[in-house]
């Protein structure tokens, strides 16, 4: 039985966490959802997550800042950025700063699951990805 993957999900739109948490739980992720970036950063300070999924455009603290913070605090953690304002320059900036992946919104929960599975593989703790029905949302 593969280990559970510790995931922090940060998006200021409540619907995102509500929709993605159960979708990620199905592939073996324990997900903590945050809508407030400051609270998320506080939690990241307390705990090393395997994966952090964060929106980019948020008030007060943006996703790039979260990425920088996570990279500094826990280089092993894979950071996945999601945004509704995807552009080439932003995507390149995110990758340059060490993002594991960059996804444009809107996306299907399955798209994120695939990326999480890739991150788990890179961390050396592959998920039981076959356990879920692909496109079951």
């Amino acid at each position, binding site marked *: 039985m593969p280990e559970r993957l510790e995931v922090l999900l940060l998006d200021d739109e409540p619907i995102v966490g509500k929709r993605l948490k159960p979708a990620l739980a199905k592939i073996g992720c324990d997900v903590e959802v945050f809508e407030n970036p400051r609270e998320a950063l506080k939690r990241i300070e307390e705990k090393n997550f395997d994966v952090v999924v964060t929106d980019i455009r948020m008030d007060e603290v943006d996703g790039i800042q979260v990425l920088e913070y996570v990279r500094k605090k826990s280089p092993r953690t894979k950071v996945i950025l999601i945004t509704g304002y*995807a*552009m*080439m320059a932003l*995507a*390149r*900036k995110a*990758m*340059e700063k*060490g*993002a594991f*992946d*960059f*996804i*444009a919104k809107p996306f299907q929960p399955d*798209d994120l699951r*695939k*990326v999480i*599975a*890739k991150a788990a*593989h*890179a961390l050396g703790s592959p998920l039981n*990805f*076959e356990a879920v029905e*692909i496109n079951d949302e």
Partner: protein
Amino acid sequence: MSCVYSERRSKRHQQVVILQRGKAMSIVLISSDSYEEGSEIAGKTAEALGYAYLGREILNMVATRYDIPQDKLLKALDESPSIFGMPAKIRHRYLAYIEEAVLARLLEDNVVCYGLAAHLYVLGVSHVLKVGLISAREERIKRISSRAGISEAKAGKLISREEKRQRQRSLEAFRIDGTDPSFYDMIIRLSNIDPDDLVKTITEIVGYRKFKPMTYSIKCLTDRELAARVRAVLLAGFPDVRVQANGGMVVVETTAIKREEAKRVAAIKKLADGISGVSRVEVHVINDIFRQAAESFR
């Protein structure tokens, strides 16, 4: 039962593809105002990176697939629009066939592409490093002057005319000015750097994290490839179509007069629906006011 098995197999295949995607590499696009020098640099870069080289040899495949003489495809790429030249509709169609083939190859990654105007149709794809190579004007003048046996003044005029044509070509075919330096990630003056150092520079830069493929950039390229494939199918019957893809959703824009609208939409949907990768087709019809006006005077 067999259906369930094949579904499982396809899921397993999908997972393998996903994990392999993690190993996907960047793409290098090179353009040059000196075909031979650019080709040499592109070839050496491909060799240094261990990537495939994608050049004008692909035109042979396009020519065979669409039964078009290869020299006509070359003309479509190099010739400027003129009233005595290749009709615009045909030129657009040939360029669309080339674009479709090039994008399909670029999707496979690990490729150095040269001389196919690809930088004009991969705009916004972040894992493509776009390199423009330019030679010093004086050197180009000297080269053309000695090769064609003409005076340097005449060679200078030829170059200016060619630059103007190049701009016209990209504006007419892609609605963008292909000579605009902002379309490139780097522009290098060939006379300023030794070819081997240039290859070393390109191979080093393409290794930067910012040029790494990611879900977003792969999707951008996949969408462009699908749109190009759909457009290539539709162009024969509907020369004015513009196509965009997002996921499997395809949006086709076309013009028609009112009474032909429904027929045109149905025909486009029928053609596009059968293309692999297309999950939904939306057709937006813009009223062809000129034809509509002409018809109303009949």
